[in-house]
């Protein structure tokens, strides 16, 4: 027995030696803790597809422009102003007196190097496609650059919020691998250390050019399990969590330690119908069947009762927050009799069988429950829908991309965070696009017209026409714009962001 005890205590001592980590010079009062479900793959945002990488990028880097969360408009950041010289040239004035974390000054050279790096096909940057319309970047003087674009590029201003500015010196002197783990930006925080899949520690950049963050430190913890995140939030271990499941909101709100906040986000959910017959002939190639499907579903009731109000009904797939959204177009209202009549006219007086590929709740909360409600509604009009659940979202998306989505499937679109109708119409409705199961030349012309002029008034008119067409033709089964749910500790003030980019530098202590 004594030997066992000796062995056990030796083990414990050994373990203790291994655990001891150097004490951090941070206190609870000056440290903000933010939790993510999964870690980033790199600290080089243009080299990642993950939203987490975008979020972390906002803390250590700056972009040329940034969205004002109150107005949702794009405003100045590293760029102070911009204007068009002609249809294909944008001139951007840069902020003076800005310093990178390594002390070097920010100039036009850094902008040119950052854009050229992402545009270089050999570098294989993930974000390349988002900026491919830019042909070249010219330095006019130390604080002025000109962008030449391939044709008129109305999304230029939106896309200025989508690329972090690296230091030219770092890109020139350091190898690619180094840049992946050592972000040197101009942003409000600096990275102190990164323990993969565990946590990131940030410290305030006291030389920041903009408003200085209140909290000196930000710890970003990786907590994969949602129940654990919620437990941490209501026990005071974490200050802000995102993507709270709707059924857990009560737990947080009644805890006395934290509260929930919701915000509409730039993501629309819909059911794609295979109008383009990518999977071969199917009933949805007939407009009347698509209309009947839209008329069968009582989406308003589903939002109210299944989603606890966490959705905003849309007439088409264009999100109310996107530029070009038409507020005058009213969504389909449930009308079972008309749906039945349309089905009979289309040759299905006795109803019809449909296979429905469904996915897991990765981006859409309560997707299974809302699917069940939709299927039940459709049955009333005569659709006999068989759900086919695909548990792995990557697999589902890959199948859809290859044209194997089937006649009807779950879909939602996050616009790549570009608040513009074009960001969904082009990818999800244009003939021949990987994620589009709709093909209509008339619509293609409108999409093309929308992206070929810099005149925002003309563009808005074009998108009104496009939405009318999509509504009348019932391209897909339209659902709603999603709302995000955040959990926020009662010790801090925080506004839930509509663009799904959490900004810890805007968090302040709550006034008592």
């Amino acid at each position, binding site marked *: *027995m004594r030997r*066992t005890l000796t062995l*056990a205590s030796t*083990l*414990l001592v050994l*373990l*203790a030696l*291994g*655990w001891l*980590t150097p004490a951090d010079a941070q206190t609870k009062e000056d440290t903000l803790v933010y939790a993510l479900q*999964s870690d980033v*793959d*790199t600290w080089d945002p243009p080299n990642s597809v993950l939203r987490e990488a975008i979020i972390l990028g906002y803390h250590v880097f700056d972009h040329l422009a940034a969205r004002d969360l109150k107005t949702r408009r794009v405003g100045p950041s590293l760029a102070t102003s911009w204007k068009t010289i002609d249809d294909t040239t944008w001139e951007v004035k840069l902020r003076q007196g800005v310093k990178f974390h390594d002390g070097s000054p920010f100039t036009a050279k850094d902008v040119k190097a950052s854009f050229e790096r992402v545009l270089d096909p050999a570098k294989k940057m993930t974000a390349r496609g988002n900026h491919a319309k830019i042909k070249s970047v010219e330095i006019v003087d130390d604080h002025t650059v000109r962008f030449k674009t391939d044709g008129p590029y109305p999304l230029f201003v939106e896309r200025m919020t989508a690329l972090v500015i690296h230091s030219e010196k770092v890109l020139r002197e350091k190898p690619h*691998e180094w840049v*992946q783990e050592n972000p040197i930006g101009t942003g409000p925080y600096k990275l102190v250390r990164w*323990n*993969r*899949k*565990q*946590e990131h520690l940030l410290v305030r950049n006291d030389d920041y050019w903009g408003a200085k963050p209140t909290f000196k430190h930000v710890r970003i*913890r*990786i*907590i*994969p*399990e949602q*129940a*654990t995140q919620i*437990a*941490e939030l*209501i*026990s*005071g*271990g974490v200050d802000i969590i995102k993507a709270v499941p709707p059924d857990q909101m009560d737990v947080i709100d009644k805890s006395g330690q934290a509260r929930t906040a919701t915000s509409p986000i730039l993501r629309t959910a819909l059911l794609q119908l295979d109008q383009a017959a990518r999977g071969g002939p199917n009933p949805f190639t007939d407009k009347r069947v698509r209309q009947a499907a839209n008329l069968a579903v009582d989406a308003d009731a589903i939002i109210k009762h299944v989603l606890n109000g966490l959705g905003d009904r849309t007439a088409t797939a264009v999100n109310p927050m996107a530029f070009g959204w038409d507020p005058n177009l009213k969504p389909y209202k449930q009308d079972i009799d008309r749906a039945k009549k349309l089905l009979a006219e289309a040759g299905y007086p006795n109803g019809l069988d449909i296979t429905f590929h469904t996915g897991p709740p990765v981006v859409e909360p309560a997707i299974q429950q809302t699917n069940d409600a939709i299927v039940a509604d459709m049955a009333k009009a005569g659709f006999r829908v068989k759900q086919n659940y695909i548990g792995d979202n990557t697999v589902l998306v890959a199948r859809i*991309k*290859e044209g194997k989505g089937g006649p009807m499937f779950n879909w939602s679109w996050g616009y790549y965070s570009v608040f513009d109708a074009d960001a969904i119409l082009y990818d999800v409705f244009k003939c021949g696009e990987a994620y589009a199961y709709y093909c209509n030349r008339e619509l293609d012309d409108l999409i093309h017209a929308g992206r070929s002029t810099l005149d925002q008034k003309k563009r808005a008119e074009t998108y009104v026409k496009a939405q009318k067409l999509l509504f009348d033709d019932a391209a897909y089964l339209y659902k709603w714009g999603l709302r995000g749910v955040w959990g926020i500790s009662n010790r801090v003030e925080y506004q839930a962001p509509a663009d799904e980019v959490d900004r810890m530098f805007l968090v302040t202590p709550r006034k008592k």
Partner: protein
Amino acid sequence: MKRYALRQLVQLTVVVVGISILSFAILHVIGDPVLLLLPQNAGKEEYERYHKLLGLDKPVYVQYWKFASRALQGDFGKSWYTDTPAFKLVIDRMPPTLYLTTAGLVAALLIALPLGILAALKRHSFVDNLCTMLAVAGQAMPIFWLGIMLIIIFAVRLKALPASGYGTWQHFLMPAFTLGAFLAPITMRLVRSGVIEIMNMDYIRTARAKGFGERKVVVKHAFRNACIPVITVLGLQFGQLLGGAIVTETVFAWPGVATLTVDSIRNQDFPVVQCAVVLLALIIVSVNFLVDIVVGLIDPRIRVA
């Protein structure tokens, strides 16, 4: 003893080679890795280039030889997902998992030994029944549920422990107990039946006849012998423990190698999966090797047989 150890070592080597072949095969069973790596619109030229680059144009035994000789030097290639050496990723995440499993093992023993002996000595009493009930409950409770319950009680309600994370001794208590509770029941039952069996042996009667106190009889004579099957089973259960670590690590946001492996499987990051499988297998095999040696040391009959 030397010959016995040598024989075990040879067995160990065979197992390790077998595992390396299996993990090498992973890449070939799941289909063409080039198709997985390349974007969907890649051309035939690019395909051939990558095919050659990965050495897939060579015969399978050459490919295996290359894989094995590199693996011996700790080179499993770069992660397809993060562009860092797979070996570094796995090694960095190994200590937290080893600490967790060791702590879980210690926790299991701290629960199982006293309860098992107690149950054996007070056979069919209220205490024994209580221990049996605890064992059944422990076996029936999913790790996941137990972990969340502990968090709710000790972190949310009592605010006595951090709900999740890694770094201080407080962080160890709940995960170690969760994992220990998973292993304790079977160990406890083994200790109990072992002690019961041994308490009826002649040498126990002899010890008692010599006038030893009951305490000395149990601790010195009975327990030592009851330990042999327990140690063997603990060795075998070590693999199970690593399996339990996957769930425990997820619930407590523990930055270990078990979650890394699962994540890598999900991301189809095969160099990391291969490296993790080989290293974890190596650890399991080594633990079993040590167990065999220890058992041999305790019980001379085994090493002779």
